[in-house]
């Protein structure tokens, strides 16, 4: 599986990649599917999300959507949510993962690539309850000598 194009998150005035798909429950519940335009976007859409703060509470909103109804026809947020300029993701409970810093290791699958840091934000019914950063390190790759002799090449 090819590495997938990320969602986008506007947080603190900056747009950063988002390695979580908060829209998936809404789409599954309503039986909505989109056409995949290429192998790097199997879900068929890219959403732009924003965390907006009101009276000290930060909430997750979907503010823009580019979804492929067909390969050529692209739907926007107002097509999927008629009458709304932004949508509060009240169904989302879980963790948002935003990769930060340099890419340490590329994985040709989903959101599996490893970056220097992950900004992790926990949400309960669309409301942020906790955030923290995680420092990632690559595990040391094993050398030939780290394997038992009978597993080494040419032994």
């Amino acid at each position, binding site marked *: 599986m090819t590495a997938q194009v990320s969602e986008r998150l506007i947080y603190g005035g900056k747009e950063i990649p988002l390695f979580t798909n908060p829209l998936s*429950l809404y789409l599954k519940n*309503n039986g909505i599917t989109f056409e995949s335009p290429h192998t790097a976007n199997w879900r068929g859409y890219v959403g732009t999300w924003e965390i907006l703060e009101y009276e000290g509470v930060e909430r997750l909103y979907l503010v823009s959507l580019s979804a492929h109804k067909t390969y050529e026809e692209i739907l926007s947020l107002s097509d999927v*949510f008629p009458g709304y300029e932004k*949508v509060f993701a009240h*169904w989302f*409970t*879980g963790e948002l993962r935003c990769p930060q810093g340099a890419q340490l290791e590329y994985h040709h699958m989903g959101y599996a690539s490893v970056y220097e840091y992950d900004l992790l934000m926990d949400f309960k*019914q669309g409301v942020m309850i906790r955030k923290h950063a995680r420092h990632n390190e690559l595990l040391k790759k094993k050398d030939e000598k780290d394997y038992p002799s009978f597993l080494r090449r040419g032994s």
Partner: protein
Amino acid sequence: MIDFVLSWRSITWLDYFFLYISPGIVIATYLLINAWRERSSEFARVLMKLIGKEISLAEQLKEAGVYCLALICVLFGWPGFVIWFFKRKKDEATNQAWQALPDFECTPEYLITEVSPVDAEIASYIIDPLGSVPPLPFGHLNECWANFLSEMMDDQDEMWSFYIPKGSKTGKYQFKCSSDIRGYAKVRDGKVLAEFITERD
């Protein structure tokens, strides 16, 4: 002909032997015909020859040897093949029945309590100071909630709330869930027949 078959009685051990291997001969013949029908086409053989991967005489002899060994196994071990064949058919039928089962996240161990649809709706209204949620039960999930309610037709149907903690194994495939999952389930005789998930990642 039938009288001849019915009146036949075995005399020597050779008769018993042929009687035993006759089903094996039928099975072996069937397998050989199948193998012959699935042989490489002339086009494939020419293609293999062109790319230098023609089957050598040694390989042909080896294959013939394997066939001979397999035929001997079938001739003498045909009861084992018959048992294996029926076991495989039974396993396939069981697997197809399992595949046809609906895949719900909620299983009976995660049910919390029976609730009425009215109580569920009262607890479901979403507070959003920016007004980006419709003032309906379960907000943007209202249509799905309506569909879920429309399935609760039978008098025996019960509506239960459920909660699946993060990391629990859920669903038909017993995957670990990556977040807490909450929702409502349609339950009859202790079995989950439908579910409406209100929150997850």
